[in-house]
C-alpha cells in the first residue's frame, strides 16, 4: 500500500489528525496520542502505514488493528478528513 504522501499529491489539500492509542497499544507505542498532518484523500490504512514508518514504537502494532474515527468503529479503508480523531484499539474486552 502506498503512503499517503505518495498518493495524494495532486489534490494538494492536507488534513491534521489527532491520533490516539489505548491500553496495550499505548504501552507498546510509549505514547497515548499524537498529531499528524496528511495529504488528502487518505484512508485509515494510509495513516496507519505512515505512522508505522515515522513514529517510533508503532512498528509493534499489528498491521491491521481495530480503528475508530470520530468515536465510531471504522474499516481500514474509511477516508479521513481534516480535524478527525483517529484511534487504534486493542482487542475489546468490555462487559
Amino acid at each position, binding site marked *: 500500500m502506498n503512503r499517503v504522501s505518495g498518493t495524494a499529491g495532486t489534490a494538494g489539500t492536507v488534513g491534521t489528525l489527532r491520533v490516539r492509542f489505548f491500553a496495550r497499544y499505548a504501552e507498546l507505542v510509549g505514547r497515548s496520542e499524537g498529531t499528524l498532518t496528511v495529504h488528502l484523500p487518505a484512508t485509515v490504512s494510509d495513516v496507519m502505514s505512515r505512522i508505522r514508518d515515522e513514529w517510533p514504537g508503532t512498528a*509493534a502494532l499489528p498491521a491491521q488493528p481495530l480503528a475508530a474515527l470520530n468515536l*465510531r468503529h471504522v474499516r481500514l479503508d474509511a477516508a479521513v478528513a481534516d480535524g478527525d480523531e483517529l484511534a487504534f484499539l*486493542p*482487542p475489546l474486552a*468490555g*462487559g
Partner: protein
Amino acid sequence: MTYLSTAPLSLDALLAEVAAPHCGGTCAFLGTVRDGPEDGGVTAIEYSAYDAMAEAEMDRIVSETRRRWPDARVAVRHRLGLVAAEEASIAIAVATPHRADAFAACRHVIEEVKKRLPVWKKELRADGTATWVDPSGHPSMVGPQ
C-alpha cells in the same frame, strides 16, 4: 447520560430506572470479575476505556435496543478503574411488558457491549503480575506479520 462509572455499580438503581407500571418482566445481567480455580489468582481487574467513544457507543447500543424492542426500558452502567474480584464490572436492566422481550433485549445489550465497547482490562494477580486480556483467546499479535 453517562454509562461509565468508577464507583461500585448498583443494580437497584438500574432497576428503579427501568421500573414502570406497564412492564411486568425485568431481566438483569451482572458481569463480575472472576477468580475461579482456572483464573490464576486474579485479585482485581483494571478497566480502562476510550471514554468519549465508550459513552457514544453505549448510547448507540441502547438506542438500537430501544428501536428493536420499542416497549423496552433499558439501563446500563459499565464500571472503570480497579474492580475487585466478585465485584460487578457491568450491570444491565431491561424491563418490558412481557418477559421474552426482557431476556432478548438484555442479552442483546451485553452481546453488543462485548463486541463494540472500547473498554480494556488488565488482570492483576496475587503474584504481582498484570496481563492485558484478549477475549478472543489468542495472544495479541504484535508487529507486522
